[in-house]
C-alpha cells in the first residue's frame, strides 16, 4: 500500500536535494538506518509531529514509506526566512531497506519527535 498517490510521490521523490518541496507541501526528513544481526533499525527526525500523525507502509518488499503530518502548518516565515514562500504540512520519505526484512513484524515507537522503527531481518 502506498500512503501517497502516484502524482504526489512523483512530486516528493526526485527533486529532494533541498529537502523542501513547496509544490507538495512536503519536507524530506533526516533519517538513519542501522543494520544489526537481527534487525534493521530506522530512526527519523520529525519535529512538529505527534505520534498519531505518523503512518508507515511497505510499498515494496525492500522499502519503507514514512508519512508524518505536522501538528501545525510550517512556513518559511516561521523559520525566519522571508524571501521564500511556502507552507508545509507533512514529512515524507521512501527509504530503501539495505537487507531483506520481515515487514509484518515491524514495531515502532515515538518519543520527542523522533520515530524509531525496528524491522526484523528475514
Amino acid at each position, binding site marked *: 500500500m502506498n500512503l501517497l498517490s502516484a502524482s504526489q510521490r512523483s512530486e516528493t521523490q526526485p527533486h529532494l536535494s533541498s529537502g523542501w518541496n513547496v509544490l507538495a507541501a512536503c519536507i524530506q526528513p*533526516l533519517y*538513519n538506518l542501522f543494520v544489526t544481526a537481527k534487525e534493521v533499525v530506522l530512526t527519523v*527526525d520529525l519535529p512538529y509531529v505527534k505520534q498519531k500523525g505518523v503512518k508507515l507502509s511497505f510499498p515494496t518488499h525492500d522499502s519503507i514509506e514514512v508519512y508524518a503530518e505536522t501538528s501545525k502548518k510550517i512556513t518559511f516565515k516561521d*523559520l525566519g526566512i522571508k524571501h521564500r514562500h511556502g507552507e508545509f504540512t507533512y514529512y515524507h520519505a521512501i527509504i530503501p531497506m539495505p537487507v531483506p526484512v520481515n515487514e509484518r513484524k515491524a514495531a515502532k515507537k515515538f518519543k*520527542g519527535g*523522533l520515530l*524509531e522503527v525496528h524491522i526484523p531481518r528475514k
Partner: protein
Amino acid sequence: MPSSLSSGDGLRIIETEPISKQAVVINGLPDVGLVGLLAASHIVRSLTLREVGAIESELLPPLIVLHGGVPKAPVRFFSGSGLVVIIAETVIPSALIRPLANSLIDWASAKSVKLMLSLGGMAVPNRQDIEVPKVFAALSAKTVEPLLNGAADILEEGYIVGAYGLLLQKCAQASIPAITLLTQSHYNYPDPEAAAAALNVVNRILGLHVDTSDLLKRGEEIRLRSKDMMHRTHEEMTRMNKSHEYDLPPLYG
C-alpha cells in the same frame, strides 16, 4: 582598518575589529548533532557578542550568508565578555581542516589565548532514551584539568576525528590550554538538548550564566531550521570517516 593573519595554506583570519589578547576561545564548528554550532550560536545571541572577524579561504565553498540583509562570511569570529566565539555556518571541507587548525593555532599563540574550548557531539545510539546528555572532556594536557572544575568526565581513550582532534593536538604542541567538550547526542539530527547540556558545562567552567531554556523551548524550530546544515555536515562527516571515533584504539597504556 581590518588586519589579517595569513597562513601558507592560503587561509586568512581577518580581524575587522581588534581582538583582545588572553581571551577564552570557544569553537562552534558543525559536527555531530550540530552541538557546537548550536551552543556557540546561543552564546553569541545570549551575550550579544560583536562580530569582529572572519576566515577567508579558497578551500571554503564560494558562498556568503545574509543576515539582516548584510552579506557575511560563513566562518566568523564574535567577541565580548572576555570570549572569542568562532562559528561556521557552512560545512568545513576535509581539505580545509589542517590549514584551519594551523591558522587558528598561529593566531591563538599570537593572541596568548587563555583557553581553547571546542564544543562537539558524541553520538550515542540510544540518545532518545537519555534525558540529560552527559558531557565528556578531552584535554590538551593533564595540567588543564583544574580548569574543568569537575564539570565533565575526562575522556581517557579514543579517537577524535576532524578539526577538534587536530586543534587539541596542536594546542598541546603549542602549550595552549585546550578542552574539547563532547556531549552525548544524536549523530545526524540537530540536537538542541545536547547543546544545552554542553552549555551548562561551559557555564561551570567559565563561570558564565548563559540561560539555556530558550534552546530547549525552541527545540523543534531549531531542529527543523538546522536540518539542511545537518544534512550537509553528515555528508562531510562520512567523507572524513567520522565513524572512526567509535573504534577502540589498539594500544593500551
